């Protein structure tokens, strides 16, 4: 083998090994078996980034449908997981809105709301607004059609006001 070929081999090896080291410190696998899991995630992430960059990114319709079924069955934890799988890059306003709505519905209570759920819902709604400020849900099951309406509802739910002690409040309905 000529010296030139060895130099090219060395350069390639150094670059590949260097990238692996950088990846290891970025992904931080917790064990040897976790290395393959993290590698798969990174490849998936890179593929989604490439799809988004080339404009070929789309939500997985099968997973979205399953997520919607879980959402309607009030299994919000499963629904969120399926929606996140359907839109791994988190750039589809419709899917992201369903995730925000799932936090609202899970956190809503006739006597008191779950503040943690509402806070997460608020963060998620802000994400939807950042993606598409004029987003409008086309699902008749969702009574709050606009992201700003959902945001207002979540913000009101987090506040403690005199109205919270109104007994008639028990008659209110979830949106």
């Amino acid at each position, binding site marked *: 083998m000529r*010296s030139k070929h*060895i*130099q*090219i081999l060395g*350069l390639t090896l*150094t670059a590949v090994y*260097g990238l692996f*080291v950088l990846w290891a*410190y970025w992904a*931080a696998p917790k064990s040897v078996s976790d290395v393959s899991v993290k590698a798969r995630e990174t490849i998936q992430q890179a593929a989604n980034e490439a799809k988004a960059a080339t404009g070929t990114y789309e939500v997985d319709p099968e997973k979205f449908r399953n997520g919607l079924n879980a959402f309607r069955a009030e299994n919000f934890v499963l629904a969120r997981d399926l929606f996140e799988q359907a839109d791994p890059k988190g750039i589809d306003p419709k899917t992201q809105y369903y995730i925000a709505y799932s936090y609202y519905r899970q956190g809503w209570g006739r006597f008191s709301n779950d503040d943690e759920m509402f806070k997460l819902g608020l963060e998620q709604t802000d994400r939807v607004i950042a993606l598409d400020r004029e987003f409008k849900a086309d699902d008749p099951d969702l009574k709050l059609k606009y992201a700003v309406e959902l945001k207002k509802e979540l913000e009101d739910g987090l506040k403690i006001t005199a109205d919270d002690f109104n007994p008639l409040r028990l008659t209110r309905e979830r949106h």
Partner: protein
Amino acid sequence: MVKDHDTTEPAEEIGDLSAIDGELVEGEDEGYVDTASESEIGRPALPPSPDGNQRAWLHFVLLPTVFMTVALLGGLRIAAPEGEFVFVRPALICLVFAVILTVLFVRTGLISVQGWFSESIPTLGNIANGAVLLSLFAASVQMFNSLIPEQGLAFWVVSFCFLWTLGVSFFTVADPGKLVRSVVALFSLAFLTKYFILLNLTSTSSGTWLQRLWDDPTKEALTYLLDLPRYASATGYIQFFAAGLFLLGLFLVRPDTRSAIGEN
């Protein structure tokens, strides 16, 4: 004839100096440009390889592999008691120390700039040498990351000691052999401090803080006071291997790479 005439003229000019007659004999060390410098720094001179490429393999393949392995392992810790990998990213001070160390390598002649980067070396050779130097720098950063405690008072004390020693070396050490010995001594001391003394002062028992305090009050108190991270003893073994690899890599670094590139 013309050549003969030319060669006799200087002899006439220098007059009474005695002439030495003899045949030119090709030396065995032909193309062995860095032997002198290697012997100067106390390294055994490598014999010429049968295919002439052993030096290239060593310099362009083995060395970066060794240094990148050090770069990988230098920040690896094993959390106690879970046994999970923890990849600790280097603190900024590690980069500063690595720069100082690399400058010291060049200043003392352990790495000759002319022997690594030169107009007479082909572009590919210069780039390949750059990659080797980069891997050496990455390994140096990670060695400091490995040897300096992660946080707390110990971090500042050991960092100061490193800064002091490197600063003194910068102005006093001019011999590459001495520099390597100094680095070995410095790293050994830091290794002993971190992986023998501090690691043995760290409590690694599991449970609530009250339970840990009950199990071993002294260690638990010292862990809290010195802000020591809880790592398993396996970390010490990994870092010992990494430090050994780094020193092996330093031993294999040649001041002049032209023989590896093939530019004799």
